[in-house]
C-alpha cells in the first residue's frame, strides 16, 4: 500500500517535471540561441557555451528596434488609457443601473470582443484612409479599441456591480449626482480592478499583429510584433535567427516579469473577464 502510494507520488512529480519542461523549454531555447553567434548558432547543445551579446547589439543597430518598442509603448498605453476612461462611465451604467435594452447592449459588447478582426479589416482600412491616419500610430490606437474597449467595459462592469449598494444609496440620499458617485465614491474603490484590466488590455494591445501589419507601412511606424515578424526577410544569405531570438527575448522578459508580479490579479482578471468575454 505504502509502496503503491510512493510510486503514485513519484509519477505525479514526473508529470509535473514534464509539464514544466514543456512550458518553459521554448523560452529557454530562445535565450540560449540569442546568446550564440556565427557558427555557434547552429549548435544544438542544450547548455550555452561562451555567450556573446552580439545579437542584442545588432537588433538595435540594424533596424529601428528602439523606435518599434517606443511605438508599441505609445500605442498600448494610449489605447489602455482611452479604454479605461471610456469604460468607466459605461461600466457604471451597465453594472448598476436598470434600463431598457441593457441586456442587449451587454450582448453586443460581448459579441464585438469575440469578432474576427479580419471581418472589419476592409471597412477599417477605408475609415483609416478617410481620416488620413494611414501609416500612423493613431490608426492603431483607434482600431485597437475594437478589442480593448469591450473587454474593459465587461470586466469593470462586473467589478462595479459587486460594490455594496449601501454606498450608492447613502450618497444618493445626500444628494450626490451619478457623476459625483462615480468619481468620488466608486473610483477610489475601482483602482485595483482598473490596474488588472488595464494590464490585460495592455498585453492584448502589445501583442496585436493584424491591424499593425495592415495599417502601417514604414519601418519607423511598425510596432514590435510586426518588426519581429519581418526581421526574417532582412537578408536571404544569412539566417538572422540569432537576432530574431534576441529581439524576442528583449520584448518578452518585461512582459513575463509583469505577469509574474501581478500573477494573482491576472488569474482573477482572466477568469472574471475571459469566461464572460
Amino acid at each position: 500500500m505504502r509502496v503503491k502510494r510512493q510510486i503514485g507520488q513519484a509519477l505525479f512529480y514526473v508529470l509535473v517535471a514534464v509539464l514544466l519542461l514543456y512550458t518553459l523549454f521554448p523560452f529557454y531555447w530562445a535565450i540560449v540561441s540569442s546568446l550564440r553567434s556565427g557558427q555557434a548558432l547552429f549548435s544544438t547543445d542544450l547548455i550555452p557555451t561562451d555567450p556573446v551579446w552580439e545579437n542584442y547589439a545588432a537588433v538595435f543597430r540594424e533596424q529601428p528596434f528602439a523606435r518599434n518598442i517606443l511605438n508599441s509603448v505609445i500605442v498600448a498605453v494610449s489605447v489602455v488609457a482611452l479604454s479605461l476612461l471610456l469604460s468607466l462611465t459605461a461600466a457604471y451604467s451597465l453594472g448598476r443601473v436598470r434600463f431598457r435594452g441593457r441586456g442587449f447592449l451587454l450582448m453586443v459588447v460581448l459579441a464585438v470582443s469575440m469578432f474576427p478582426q479580419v471581418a472589419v479589416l476592409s471597412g477599417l482600412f477605408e475609415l483609416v484612409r478617410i481620416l488620413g491616419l494611414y501609416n500612423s500610430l493613431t490608426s492603431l490606437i483607434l482600431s485597437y479599441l475594437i478589442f480593448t474597449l469591450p473587454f474593459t467595459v465587461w470586466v469593470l462592469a462586473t467589478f462595479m456591480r459587486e460594490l455594496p449598494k449601501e454606498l450608492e444609496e447613502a450618497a444618493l440620499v445626500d444628494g450626490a449626482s451619478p457623476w459625483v458617485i462615480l468619481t468620488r465614491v466608486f473610483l477610489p474603490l475601482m483602482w485595483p480592478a482598473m490596474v488588472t484590466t488595464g494590464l490585460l488590455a495592455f498585453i492584448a494591445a502589445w501583442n496585436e499583429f493584424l491591424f499593425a501589419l495592415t495599417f502601417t507601412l514604414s519601418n519607423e511606424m511598425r510596432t514590435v510584433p510586426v518588426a519581429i515578424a519581418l526581421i526574417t526577410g532582412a537578408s536571404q544569405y544569412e539566417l538572422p535567427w540569432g537576432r530574431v531570438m534576441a529581439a524576442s527575448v528583449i520584448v518578452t522578459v518585461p512582459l513575463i516579469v509583469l505577469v509574474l508580479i501581478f500573477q494573482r490579479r491576472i488569474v482573477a482578471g482572466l477568469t472574471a473577464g475571459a469566461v464572460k468575454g
Partner: protein
Amino acid sequence: MTATTPGSLTGAEDRNRIGGETVGRLEQRRRRAALLFLLPTVVALLLVAGWPLLRTVYLGFTDARLGSTEEAAFIGFANFGYLLTDPGWWQATWVTLKFASASVVLETLLGMVIALVLNAHLPGRGLMRAAVLVPWAIPTVISAQMWGWMYHDLYGVVNTLLVGIGILDAPVAWMADPDTALWAMVAVDVWKTTPFMALLILAALQTLPTEIYEAARVDGVHPVRVFFRVTLPLIRPALMVAIIFRALDALRMFDLAYVLAGGNPATATLSVYARQNLVDFQDVGYGSAASTLLVLLILLITIILLTVGRVRLAADTR
C-alpha cells in the same frame, strides 16, 4: 468559478428601499445619467466596429479594389459565387476547421491535466502556476518565431531531440510538408493557449465543494470514477463556455499562420486567405466577401456549440 454568465449582470439589480416619490425621481435621474455615461463608449464602438463591419459586408458585394479611386460597382453575389468555386477558399476553410478543432480538443485535455495538477495540494504549486503563465504572456508572433527556429529543418532543436531519442530516423522539414506544417501550427497554439484553458478550468475546480470528495474517499470510490461522475458534470457549464471562447479565438487565427508558415497557401487559415486577397492582391471586394463568409461560419459554429453544449449564454438577460 468566480465568473458568472454574461446575463447575470442584469439579474442582480438593487431595489431601492428608501421609499416614496424621491426614489422615483432619483431613479429617473440615474437612468438619464446612465444613458449619457454610455454615449462615449457606444459612439466609439459604432465608429470602430459597427461602421467598418457594415462597410466590409457591403464591399463584399462590390468589385472594389485597393488604391483605386474609381467608384466601386455593385456586383451582387458574384464574389461569393467565385469564392465557393475557388479551391483556395475551400483549402483555407479546411485548414481553419482542422486547426481549430485539433487545437481546442488538445488544449482542453491538456488544460484539464494541468488544472488538476494545480488543484492538488502540493509544494511548488505557485511555481507551477507561474510557469504556465509564461507561454501565455509571450506574444503570438514571438512564439511563432521561437517555434519556427525550433522547427528549422537543418538546425532546429526539435529534430535534434527527436532524432536523439530515436523517435525520428532523419530530420524532418516540418514547415515544408502541408500535413506536418498544420500539426506544427497546432502544437504552437496548444503550447501558447493551454495555460489559459487550464486557468479557467482551475477556477471552476476551485468552486467545487470539498465535502463531496471527502464523502467519496470515505466510501472508497476510485478517484477516476469520482472525476467522471462528479467533477466533470459539475464543471461542465464552465468548461463549455471556455471551449466556446477558445474555439472562436482559434477560428479567427491569423498571426501564427502568417508568421510561422509565411502565408503559405497550404496552411493559410481563412483570416490569412481573406487578408491576402484584400491587401496583397488588392481585391477588396473579394477579400471582404471572404471575411463575411468567415463571420457567417463562426456564427454557425457558435450556434452549434451553444446548442450541443446546452449552454445558456444569456439566458437571464432581459
